[in-house]
């Protein structure tokens, strides 16, 4: 099975028959080079940045913080409070990530609303919008806790099989999603009101 087939959805029923060493090698390659997209929304973002810096350094775990955007990322770390106003944007960024994609929810606010659970405009946990793979508790969690969360994610990826991902993916019943379904029109700028002074 050529390696290029792995990234495309609908790799075919033959994926289920892939021998264990190939699955091990593919998962090994995927888990030790994760391009991370930091959805840094609040204070936890600073802890994420601290983890990427020299002292804690998650680059040594294989996580690259240099993804230019969600389209080139493997894992999205949601760090900070998700407000109701930003929720559609979080969903849109998640949908822009290509499969296989993983999400780490970093901090109490993105786990379940955290200290702002009773607010009128906070989404109580980013898992109300997108599927989350690892939850890192803390307010904010230590950088070392994020390192342990990344290691947990790597264990999870090692167990991953292509059949499971196909089952979990929204395109599970479709062999190949049509291109029209995956593209979106450009966002139009908001229409200015009369005598807009902004």
């Amino acid at each position, binding site marked *: 099975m050529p390696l290029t087939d792995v990234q495309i959805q609908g790799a075919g029923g033959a994926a289920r028959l892939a021998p264990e060493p190939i699955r091990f090698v593919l998962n090994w390659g995927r888990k030790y080079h994760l391009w991370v997209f930091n959805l840094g929304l609040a204070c936890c973002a600073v802890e994420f940045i601290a983890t990427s810096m020299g002292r804690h350094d998650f680059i040594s775990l294989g996580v690259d913080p240099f993804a230019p955007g969600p389209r080139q990322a493997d894992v999205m770390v949601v760090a900070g409070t998700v407000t109701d106003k930003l929720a559609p944007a979080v969903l849109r960024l998640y949908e822009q990530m290509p499969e296989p994609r993983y999400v780490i929810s970093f901090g*109490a606010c993105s*786990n379940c609303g*955290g*200290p702002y659970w009773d607010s009128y405009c906070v989404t109580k946990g980013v898992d109300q919008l997108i599927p989350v793979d*690892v*939850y890192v*508790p803390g*307010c904010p969690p230590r950088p*070392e806790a994020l390192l342990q969360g990344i290691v947990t994610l790597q264990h*999870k990826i090692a167990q991953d099989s292509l059949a499971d991902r196909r089952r979990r993916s929204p395109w599970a019943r479709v062999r190949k999603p049509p291109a029209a379904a995956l593209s979106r029109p450009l966002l139009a700028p908001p229409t200015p009101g009369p005598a807009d002074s902004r």
Partner: protein
Amino acid sequence: MTPPLPPRSRGVIALLEENCTVCMLCARDCPDWCIYIDSHTEVTAPTAPGARPRTRNVLDRFAIDFALCMYCGICIEVCPFDALFWSPEYEYATSDIAALTHEKEQLREWLWTVPAPPATEPNAQPPREVAAAAKAVRADYPGGFSGSS
């Protein structure tokens, strides 16, 4: 690899179930409403003739939802019986958010990681519990310093 953590680091909360009298102060004061306590009362028969039957609260469930917890420490400060302690452990990330609600068995496991309290300043007054314990030892010592046998 554990970095050198400062004393009184806040990582996770441990529960000493024997000290808990189910006064519910921690559950009431928690700003996140993340402490769940269930209990029932038990009546024990009077020990001596003429004594009253005593009721006590028995803890059924004590759970802290660490997905919600913001690690403010109000529950530990407010507990009048010193049943809750800070522990510096921080590595308990999970894939399942329900696993972040730690029940009392798991909260007891965190107890073994609670460090000793930091030493007091030199020449400072010792904490009252330590002074009382020292006085009790002196009084119990056979032929003790108090003079009475």
